[in-house]
């Protein structure tokens, strides 16, 4: 009996023991970089670091350096936000071509020869990266509700007020992502801060998506800081105006209904907000361009602390010539052996003596044929020298791979040209005709850029010269390689069809027409399979 009692005791203690072990299954983070959410937000500066995370997704691909990514199915570097935007807005056009084609950097070949299908990792990367932006924004909004803040003991009124600004900024960043998706894909799935994790959003398309972004931005405008009053690295009202002016200028493409007056209003808001053209055009594209007075918002890159394979790292390294080997000497980078070159039709935008002194013309042509007969041969075609990882005073950037150069998402010069275009279109100019109806304000804006480029007024244009066809070319000259070209060509009716062809358009050496459905990109099959609410774009 005693033994049985003893056994019973042993059995019970075993039960207690196993029960305590069962609790061991509830593991918790032990690493100093890994936190339960509540522990994370209990730290000093947590909200600032969380909003830095929402901003950071524009620059960084992951949390452990440039090779890490929140996304899979696409190379970390290739899924960087500005790089995806850049590939899809620039490589599909007359402005640039990438040497390492085909399987070398999958997806690039199909984009730059305009023969894409949905099965393209860059489309997967772009859509996922932008939707992660949405998810991060929503998460920030969820984590900063008044209830959450008070439950965590955040009572300091100044801090609560600042978090209020963060919340508005998070919403603006969500709108940026949806704006890019509207432009590139024509639609997206809507996910709000009220939706749970792993929720499948409903498709929102065209006018509905346009209206959603417009409404959101107009609603948060009062909650954003006044233009130029926020800390560097954060956005303000001008950021919202910038997206709105882009939406309105392209409204006819997105919704069929023009909104040029609204566009002019928004451009005027920006123009009147105190931004100044940087006296030297090229200083906007150098390692210290974060100090440029012209930039409304830029996607950060830092050779030490914000390392990424984003658009500026790609361009600074990619523009280094294979023959010239001019990376270190000119741009402070090692270079990628002639990855990027120019197509003939872009080069021709600078034809003529009138551009001999134009600082925007950075084309290097010596010893190179203008035509690219074989995309893989880096010695064919001219190259560009617009971007640099050296500072305005010529000092090399901190790192010879990862540049210090920020990517100017919105800069003042763009809005001068947008104002002029909206005005002309509002006043009756249409694609393809030669109406020259720029008013004096518009002409003044255009010539501000000309004077800056030429360091004098000898290159200025007159009203009679300013047609829409002039404007699209002027936009190319001013804004090439800044991620606008595809959108501009579509708005001007020159992207699809055969109105305007360029080398390798439609996979022909001299270019051929491409179908109209190519105005929007298709979704990657995985994107749709993971959320069947999303319907593939027509024609794909």
């Amino acid at each position: 009996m005693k033994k049985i009692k003893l056994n019973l005791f042993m059995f019970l203690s075993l039960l207690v023991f196993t029960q305590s072990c069962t609790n061991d299954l509830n593991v918790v983070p032990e690493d100093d970089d890994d936190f339960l959410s509540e522990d994370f937000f209990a730290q000093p500066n947590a909200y600032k670091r969380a909003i830095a995370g929402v901003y950071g997704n524009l620059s960084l691909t992951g949390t452990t350096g440039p090779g890490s990514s929140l996304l899979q199915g696409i190379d970390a570097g290739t899924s960087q936000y500005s790089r995806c935007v850049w590939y899809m807005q620039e490589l599909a056009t007359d402005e640039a071509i990438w040497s390492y084609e085909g399987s070398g950097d999958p997806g690039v070949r199909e984009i730059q020869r305009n023969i894409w299908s949905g099965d393209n990792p860059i489309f997967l990367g772009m859509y996922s990266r932008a939707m992660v932006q949405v998810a991060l924004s929503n998460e920030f909004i969820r984590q900063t509700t008044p209830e959450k803040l008070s439950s965590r003991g955040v009572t300091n009124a100044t801090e609560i007020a600042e978090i209020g600004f963060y919340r508005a900024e998070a919403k603006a960043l969500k709108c940026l992502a949806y704006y890019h998706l509207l432009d590139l894909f024509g639609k997206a799935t809507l996910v709000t801060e009220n939706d749970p994790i792993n929720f499948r959003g409903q498709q929102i398309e065209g006018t509905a998506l346009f209206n959603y972004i417009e409404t959101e931005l107009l609603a948060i405008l009062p909650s954003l800081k006044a233009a130029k009053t926020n800390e560097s690295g954060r956005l303000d009202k001008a950021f919202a105006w910038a997206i709105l002016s882009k939406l309105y200028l392209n409204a006819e493409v997105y919704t069929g209904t023009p909104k040029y007056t609204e566009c002019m209003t928004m451009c005027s808001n920006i123009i009147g907000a105190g931004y100044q053209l940087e006296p030297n055009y090229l200083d906007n594209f150098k390692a210290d361009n974060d100090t440029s007075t012209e930039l409304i918002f830029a996607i950060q890159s830092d050779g030490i602390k914000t390392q990424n394979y984003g658009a500026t790292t790609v361009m600074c390294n990619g523009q280094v010539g294979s023959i010239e080997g001019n990376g270190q000497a000119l741009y402070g980078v090692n270079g990628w052996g002639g990855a990027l070159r120019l197509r003939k039709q872009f080069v021709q935008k600078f034809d003529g003596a009138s551009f001999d002194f134009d600082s925007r013309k950075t084309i290097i042509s010596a010893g190179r044929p203008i035509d690219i007969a074989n995309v893989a041969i880096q010695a064919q075609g001219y190259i560009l020298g617009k971007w640099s990882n050296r500072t305005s005073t010529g000092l090399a950037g901190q790192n010879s791979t990862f540049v210090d150069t920020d990517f100017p998402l919105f800069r003042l010069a763009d809005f001068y040209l947008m104002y002029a275009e909206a005005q002309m279109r509002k006043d009756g100019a249409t694609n393809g005709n030669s109406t020259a109806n720029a008013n004096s304000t518009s002409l003044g804006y255009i010539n501000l850029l000309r004077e800056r480029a030429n360091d004098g007024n000898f290159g200025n244009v007159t009203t009679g010269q300013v047609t829409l066809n002039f404007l699209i070319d002027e936009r190319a000259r001013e804004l090439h390689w800044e991620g606008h070209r595809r959108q501009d060509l579509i708005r001007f009716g020159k992207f699809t069809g055969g109105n305007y062809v360029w080398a390798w358009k439609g996979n022909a050496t001299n270019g051929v027409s491409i179908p109209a459905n190519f105005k929007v990109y298709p979704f990657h099959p995985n994107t749709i399979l993971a959320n069947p609410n999303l319907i593939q774009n027509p024609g794909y």
Partner: protein
Amino acid sequence: MKTIYKKLLFLFLTLPFSVLAQNTLSGVVLDSKSNQPLPGVNVVVQGANSSTSTDFDGKFKLGGLKSGDKVVFSFIGYNSETITFSGQNTVSISLTESANQLQEVVVQVGYGTVKKKDATGSTTVLAAKDFNKGANVTTENLLNGRIAGVSVNTSGAPGSGSEIRIRGGASLNASNDPLIVIDGLPIANTTIAGSTSFLASLNPNTVESITVLKDASATAIYGSRASNGVILITTKKGGKKLSVDYNFQYGSGKLVKTVDVFGADQFRQVITDKFPSLVPTLGNSNTNWQEEIYRRTDFVDNSLSIKGNLFNAIPARLTIGNTYQEGLRLTNDFNRSTVSLALAPSMFKDHLKIKVNANYSNEKNRFAPGVEGSALSFDPTQPVYDASSQFGGFFEYRNTAVTTTTVDALTPNVARNPVAELLQTNDRGINNRIFGNFEVDYKLHFLPELRFVVNLGFDQAKGERSKTVPRNSAVAFSNNNIIYGTNEFAEETFTNKLLDAYFNYNKAFGKLNLDLTAGYSYQKFEKDRFDTGNVNNPQLGANFPETTIDPDIVLLGYFGRANFTYNSKYLLTLAFRRDGSSRFAENNRWGNFPAASFAWKINEDLFKENKSISDLKLRVGWGVTGQQDTGDERYGYLERYVQGDGVSQYFIGGTAYSVGIPTARTAIKWEETTTYNIGFDYGFFKNRITGSLDAFYKLSEDLLFNAPTADGSNFTNTSFQNIGSFSTRGLELNLNAAVVENEGTGFNWNINFNATTFQRKIEEVDPFTRIERGGIDGGTGANVLVLQSGFTPDSFYVYKQLYDSAGNPIEGGYADLNGDGIINTDDRYIYNNTDPDLLLGFASNINYKNFDFSFNMRASFGNRNFNNVNSNRAVFARMQPSGTLAAANVPVSVLDTNFENTTNTLTSDLYVENASFLRMDNITLGYTFPKWLEGKASLRLFTGVQNAFVITDYSGLDPEITGGIDRTIYPRQRSILFRVNVKF
């Protein structure tokens, strides 16, 4: 408990009465060797109808006997005895075990053992005498090619790990590695800093036997970790007599084959013809870079094992070993010292048995960077050394246009001297590891059928690795043309703790034998790491030095098993395990894993009189096993934030902040594999031919799949989900034969042959039509493998190459398979897969007097490799990789295709090649002096060749690669071995 006790008491009390009857023979049957009672022995009166069998204590009683009756005692695995009844009342019979290997073999089944003859699941045991001979540095190589359904693929690096697959694995995305258990301690497949492999710490000389559990009825006792099979490694134990076993082995290895690239003269010619602008960059040397980076290697292995009985009470074994193996790559070596101690005392008349296994290993490694790629492509006209070079006297491309204060600037974007990279990189690791277990096995005094076993396991590895590259090296860290050098240090600790507690109840009730086991298992894995980063980097991230602590992994299990044996002929095993894993959220945490198997010794019923069939057992099994190993996905169900490291920051107001990013959230549960197995164990002609034949079908469901998630609500686009299913069906044949058994001439010839065929098929990966994977060199993110419903996992997904009328491939010419007039990614198709159609293993062992000669070989048919070396490199454009700065070499196969550019040659089906092969793993010839030193000792000498030859049509360096994509590999060496083995 109480009632059982009463019943038992009743049974004991009634026993004595039964022996009082007249004409009754009673007695006890014992094992002649151990004098232990034998239960279940058949006691039959010849020519009469009366029979009985012995009880659990070996006792029997047989009534109605007449004087002169012949009573036969028979028992499987024992020689029968016959006595004549002459009125005696009691008798004591000793049965001797028949000399039959098959039936003596003990199979580890996890938390216990069974005799091979009683095993109901698909299991294979390999004892020390069956192990592969030759230079086996890691334990898994002992069984390579020897067991049907088990494949081992080891890289060429010394001490390196292997890809082990049992029946092809059961997972698509989660781990496919089998569970490896050393003396009851499941070890983690985690290789830590400073070490080459998680199995490299175990000295193969200490291994006594390896049991492989293949089907779920056998593995289910390991529940959540058993889907990929289980390998149970048992180390040697002490003995009663003092014995010493010393082994010395020396090997000398060399490179077998190089990738065929242009020689210097031919290279000069091709450059002159095709890239005249590069001619000025050429040198005057004639260098075979692939031979320069490799060397002849030494291998020295010493192992001393002492067995004995300490204080006449504690059987003990001590093994001390050292293995030194040089890698082919210059500077690469592996140096392992091990001490292993096994104690097995038993007390209280064997009621209390204690087993202690303690292993210590010290690994010292020098790692060498993988320079195969640069050796292939480096200009053969350049010299290895250059007296004028400031880079340690090695030739490097220098840019005299740019000078810095100290040294010439290096030309950017060109290859670096691979010999210099090897010789100037000092990358060393040390790994100290202690592992072992302490087992207490207590047989209750008042109820000896019941045993309690507690097994405590412990495994801790501490490793460190340091890497320095001097400032005069071209591959050292540099920035903005200033070489800073590399100086990194990392330290890692991995701990694995185990507690198993179970009881075992074994009793016979008449013809029914019952063996019950039930218990509890707790295991915890912890890992942390410390990194200094490159301290020479002035821009080193602020997070360094960085300590990283991995989330713990905790596994809990409750398990039970019941073996029912009826009349020693019909065997039924039921097993059940319930497992919890910290990898899953509370609502998904627990999984149940049942199994059942049945075996019927057919020959006992049907072929008892048949002379040629000595054994025939049918096994039928079913079981469900689990998978929880999702790698680094350790607790995705928790709401967490991680912060950016030193280079992942965002500037606000001029201050850089580590970004705070919410982690991807998952809601996953167990992956489950259901296995059906039917098999025969056979023995013919007095077991001169033995073996087994198995057919199996496995279905893995709720696959732990890292698959796309709906965008916008999670913080990633891909997360682990339970998606889809896939099946494997296969046949396995094992055959051992004593071809010649001639005691008279002393000539014996034994062979082992095994054959495996299996077919894996994805039943569904819904909702995804296909998932691409298998990145290749030469293209960022380019994939050539695909997972698609209805096809074998990892089928090749490539373009269909077009050929001209002469049969030559057209560069960039692909079939427009979907007929839309455009060649794009939609035109890729599924073309073959990486799986072999048939795997064969063959081992032969001939003894003639004191000579022995053995070899083993393996063959694989129908497996295919994607030759990425050619697809990436065999194009002329690769000869001009960096403008006019330097020329580079390419494989001569470029002359076959005449392809100019990598554009679209990368993923052509042209590079999917049949990689069937036959490999002679080793050939050994030995001579034994059995009575050396006046019979006090035995001496065995042997010599052999390891990796003797490979027969294949595959055009790459070696057909045997992992993963189906042949990038540059660390080549396997061929070595000549000498071995001395002394025993006394």
